[in-house]
């Protein structure tokens, strides 16, 4: 009961703070807009980045294998370096490997029924297991064993295949291809090309390749405890094995640190933070200055320093949370609208984006209120008398 009474008592003081803040509508609006704008920019920037990173790892996510074997020089799925067949045999011979299958992943140019050409990503799955196959939404998976069979992925790029039906034909390096089904995947690719699934053998038969043909070896370990041993054994033969998460992180690090993309996004996020801090800090400071004598009067009447502190912190926190909500809402709306018009728009709001923006907003509110707190705490109530 005592705690409830105490909370209720503080509520009155915070209610005064709330009214002082919100009743000054132009200032309050300026504060909210400043923070919302900063949050909008920060969330937008980091969401685009998250979207790009998600797309960059789409093949890894969609295939879903737990361990990926590759050449050590591989940076992303797109720039794979083909491995010789003996690597597959070597991997299969390692203790702890339940099974290992080859995967082909590469680009090709298909000639559509209209006669136009379209770049596509072709994924070739192991015939025996079809390990890593996508979830079919139309058609039968066993039809993939039929002659010239391909599965088209219904993602944001699907329309570029000119809305094929089951049975639709296309031409790939003078080979006939037939769509036997449609699949859905977790994530669309980064490069704006439609994806076709087929068998590994058909892929390397249709698409001219170098002497070696295995893009990746997908490994299913007997248990999680075996992964480290498998990685060590593969390292001994001059290749690397990475867990799915490790490979996704590697791709993310590549885009972040070796393409300039991460740096640019970081710069934009910092600029957004500075813009938000400048607008809201300046407005909050002006708000405090304009109300300084009123805070002085409160102090003269008998308000304690901690009560004034609580009022300012509440005002800063309230404004920050309102701005944060509005900024996130606006960003979500914009991304949703953009995706309606541009299905390939790579942006995704993640908890990490929201967390980063939240931390930034807390810092903005903290710095803004610190400036105000200093001004208010140093008020001499005597100044209120002197006018």
């Amino acid at each position, binding site marked *: 009961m005592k705690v409830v009474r*105490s909370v*209720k*008592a*503080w*509520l*009155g*003081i915070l*209610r*005064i703070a709330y*009214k*002082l803040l919100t*009743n*000054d509508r132009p200032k309050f609006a300026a504060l909210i807009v400043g923070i919302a704008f900063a949050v909008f920019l920060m969330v937008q920037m980091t969401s685009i980045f998250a979207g790009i990173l998600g797309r960059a790892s789409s093949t890894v996510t969609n295939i879903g294998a737990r361990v990926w074997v590759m050449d050590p020089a591989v940076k992303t799925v797109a720039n794979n370096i083909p491995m010789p067949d003996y690597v597959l045999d070597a991997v299969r011979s390692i203790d702890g490997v339940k099974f290992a299958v080859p995967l082909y992943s590469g680009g090709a140019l298909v000639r559509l029924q209209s006669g136009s050409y379209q770049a596509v990503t072709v994924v070739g799955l192991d015939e025996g297991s079809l390990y890593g196959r996508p979830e079919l939404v139309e058609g039968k998976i066993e039809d993939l064993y039929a002659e010239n069979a391909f599965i088209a992925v219904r993602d944001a790029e699907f329309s570029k295949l000119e809305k094929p039906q089951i049975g639709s034909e296309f031409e790939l390096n003078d080979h006939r291809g037939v769509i036997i089904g449609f699949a859905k995947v977790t994530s669309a690719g980064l490069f704006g090309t439609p994806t076709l699934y087929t068998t590994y053998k058909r892929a390397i038969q249709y698409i001219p390749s170098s002497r070696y043909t295995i893009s990746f070896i997908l490994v299913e370990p007997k248990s999680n405890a075996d992964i480290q041993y498998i990685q060590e054994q593969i390292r001994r033969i001059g290749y690397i094995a990475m867990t799915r998460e490790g490979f996704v992180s590697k791709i993310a690090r590549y885009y972040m640190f070796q393409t300039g993309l991460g740096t640019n996004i970081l710069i934009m996020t910092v600029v957004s933070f500075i813009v938000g801090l400048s607008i809201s800090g300046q407005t909050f400071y002006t708000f405090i200055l304009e109300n300084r*004598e*009123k805070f*002085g*009067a*409160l*102090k*003269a*009447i*008998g*308000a*304690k*320093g901690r*009560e004034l502190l609580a009022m300012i912190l509440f005002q800063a926190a309230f404004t920050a949370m309102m701005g944060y909500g509005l900024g996130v809402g606006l960003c979500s709306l914009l991304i949703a609208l953009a995706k309606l018009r541009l299905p390939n728009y790579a942006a995704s709001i993640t908890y990490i984006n929201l967390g980063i923006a939240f931390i930034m907003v807390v810092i903005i509110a903290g710095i803004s209120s610190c400036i105000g707190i200093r001004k208010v705490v140093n008020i*001499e*109530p*005597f100044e*209120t*008398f*002197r*006018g």
Partner: protein
Amino acid sequence: MTATAVKAMGLVKWFGEGDVKTYAVRDVSFEAYFGEMLYIVGPSGSGKTTLLSMISGILRPDDGSVLVDNKMIWSLSNDQIADFRLKSVGFVFQDYHLFPRLTTAENVAIPLILRRENWDNAIKTAKEYLEIVGLKERAELTPRKLSGGEQQRVAIARAIAGRPDILIFDEPTASLDGDTGRKIVDFIKKDVLNDRRCIIIVTHDGRIYEYADRIMQMEDGRISGTEQGAPHEE
């Protein structure tokens, strides 16, 4: 006039240091009593406001002490002094210092809310005090929509809402025309002053001297004289 409400003993206050050190109040001692309306008058810069600030717990004296309700207020902690101001002193500032973004009722309720009273109860009490000062109908308006005299009354309602023993008025008629000023002081004398309350007014408005029970003259930081107020004619 019976019991002592405020006892100031040897109050000294200076501002600045070294060559710029200026004495605002020099060795001032006096007593103010319950049921009394005491005026502190004098020219600008004579130390009236500084003295008022020291006896109301706002400005710490450099020397001397102030006794209120058997307590030496300047030996209290900062929080205790804030509590003293909140519970024992009501202020009416020269510029009123009403919050333009709050309604008049909310303005009046501030001391009650600072005393941790429930919001609804505080507003209800504030409206009762607005009724006392004749502004019940103005409870939901913001101070900007009130005349100077009405704003002064709101400030008075705020000062008395906490039921303080001591009321401090700093130049209460400075922003008012002659008639309104007289009406306000008349109201203070008749409806605000009572046997359990002491009112101290700083002013240099000669038009309202007639309401004083006692007038304390200040000059160069010292009390240059004390006289009984002129009898007020109804």
